[in-house]
């Protein structure tokens, strides 16, 4: 419970910052002020300024928007495609279709996820949209597997048998009875994938394949600060901390959610 609260607070803070950045940031992040570059933290610039004189605090805020949006939509793609595929595979368990779906998932799984993402963005050109697609694609098999696994164990249960006796088809059973019973699994996994998505987005933009300038992104801020780290460490520190805290927050949230929703853990009294 405690991890859920701490995680929720951390993730919530960044979500709030991201939403706030739509209506207000202390400074305009596309406005350069070369004369005011590389300033340390001050009352005016809370986190200091970068090598172009942009306000770092504002950039972190807008960067949060990019990171969260990319990760959220990517998880959405993964869930939106992975869950139906998993349900379909489970409802036809053992059939050729099941094999086809799961083996193609294995194929995607066989590649390291960030490698696929780099491949996709390198082929289709770097942009936030392509980063979303790339991260989304490697989220599909995660959800497809989880869904199929959860659904298979349900298919043998009596209430499903009852539904079949009542004349419901596999599709209806999947949607009406299976899906609601694996929602908690999906939410927990979704939260964790969300944090992985943020890491992946940071990794992609670090190598220049994420959101393109002038849109700020945490990964690129890190990459650009690299040569200046010895005399302006704050340039790397703040985006780095932002990534850590967001990922940590989401992971804690995921843990907390699992503790609450998983009946087995609840029974053992953890």
């Amino acid at each position, binding site marked *: 419970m405690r991890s859920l609260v701490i995680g929720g607070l951390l993730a919530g803070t960044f979500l709030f910052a991201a939403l706030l950045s739509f209506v207000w940031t202390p400074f305009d992040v596309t406005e*350069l002020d*070369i*004369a005011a570059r590389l300033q340390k933290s001050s009352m005016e610039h809370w986190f200091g300024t970068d090598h*172009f004189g942009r306000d770092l605090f504002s950039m972190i805020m807008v960067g949060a928007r990019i990171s969260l949006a990319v990760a959220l939509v990517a998880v959405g793609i993964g869930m939106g495609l992975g869950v139906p595929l998993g349900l379909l595979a489970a409802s036809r368990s053992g059939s050729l279709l099941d094999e086809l779906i799961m083996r193609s998932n294995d194929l995607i799984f066989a590649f390291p996820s960030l490698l696929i993402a780099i491949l996709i963005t390198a082929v289709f*050109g*770097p942009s936030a949209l392509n980063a979303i697609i790339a991260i989304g694609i490697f989220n599909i098999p995660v959800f497809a597997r989880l869904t199929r696994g959860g659904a298979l164990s349900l298919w043998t249960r009596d209430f499903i048998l009852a539904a079949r006796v009542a004349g419901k088809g596999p599709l209806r059973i999947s949607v009406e009875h299976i899906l609601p019973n694996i929602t908690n699994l999906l939410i927990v996994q979704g939260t964790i994938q969300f944090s992985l998505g943020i890491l992946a987005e940071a990794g992609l933009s670090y190598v220049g394949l994420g959101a*393109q*300038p*002038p849109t700020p992104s945490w990964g690129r801020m890190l990459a650009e600060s690299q040569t200046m780290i010895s*005399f302006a460490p704050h340039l790397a520190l703040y985006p780095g901390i932002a990534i850590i805290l967001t990922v940590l927050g989401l992971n804690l949230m995921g843990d907390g959610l699992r503790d609450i929703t998983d009946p087995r853990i609840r029974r053992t009294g953890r």
Partner: protein
Amino acid sequence: MKTLTFTAAMMLGASVAAAQQTELTLGLQLEPPHLDPTGAAAAAIDEVVYANVYEGLTRFAADGSVRPALAESWDISDDGMSYTFRLRSGVTFHDGAEFTAEDVKFSLERTTAEDSTNAQKALFEGIESVNAIDDTTVEITLTEPDGALLFNLAWGDAVIIDESDVETLKQAPVGTGPFKFSNWVQGDSIELVANDAYWGEPAKLTKATFKFISDPTAAFAALMAGDVDAFPVFPAPENLPQFDADPRFNVIVGSTEGETILSTNNQNGPLADKRVRQAIAHAIDRQAIIDGAMFGYGTPIGTHFAPHNPAYVDLTGLTPHDPEKAKALLAEAGFADGFTTTLKLPPPSYARRGGEIIAAQLRNVGIQTEISNLEWAQWLEQVFRGKDFGLTIVSHTEPMDIGIYARPDYYFQYDDPVVRAMMSGLASMSVPEDRTAVLQAVQRRISEEYVNGYLFQLAKTGVADVRIKGLWENSPTQANDLTEVYWEE
């Protein structure tokens, strides 16, 4: 035990070498694709082999002047149509073959041949014939007088090679220079060793290693750790003050031939309109770019010409930073609401950082840019060969390259009969004052036509161990001449 002795011997060997200090490791950012400077445009080739491995009839000295190299002296006929070069005798190639007039004939004819892949073929098109009169005398006949021939022959693209080595030059170069090619570990380094049979003053170093480090952070670490002794063009200007403050290092800031420009596709949509290009020129704040992208290193330019050249005209006053005027010009051209174009950026920090600054400056006057960061290979493919771009930022590092404005098929596609006429007239002039007058007229013309956005002259920002002497301060051509380099005791 055997291993131990071996290791000890190696350590002993290393410490002896360190005491004598006749070996040098030089850091370079780009690895050459191959090592034949007569076959490709890549500057990285000349940065390894020019004056070290290969030599031409003439050569550039550190101050940019043209000096005799393999040619001892020359006579020019009164009509300027024929040059007679007297070659040095007793010169041998690294493989032992003798250097003769036939090699000169072969090399130059190969450059001008129909199927030549020479990157500067256009420079030598005026050569009608090359005749080997005897072993040490060569006569070059021209189709029309060319006042720049001696200068052009000093380019790395005109070095002399031996016919028997042509097939293997790319991997194992054989020249006449003070250093011999020894080893190339692809992706890591190239080793040269001193040529004992060199015709001139032998090199002071016994071995030179060129180490390729593309990442600026790694370059910083390599210098700090002593893995490389010098970085003639250090890729991250922001680190220079740190090296400057460190007594172990010397920061050498010199000039280069690199005119860094906002290259504009003169045939691309709104950019074909001169008023739009003028608006862009006024939207740019050069000093902000120099400060923001290069941390203050660089000289503003107003045309495509190196400021240290005596013929340079300072035209920066023609297009001062004036966003209001830029907006007015855009409105006059029918783009009151601005327009969107592409800005394709190659990897160097002058381009990547400069690009972000220029994008912001253009945004201020209503021009939106879609930035895409490209690797060099992609940039050459899309921008240089494909001409698929609106704007790009690149440094033209060849010396005296204003002639590219007379080539309508060059990647920025500037088609102007006036400049073409001026440049073709230039070729037949050998009186220096006349040449200067024409060069200045061309500088003014391209500046007043706002062909490209002229930003700044790239500074050569080198970092070297304080004990190293004899490195070139300036960069009159793409080269790291190690002939005079030595370690001070």
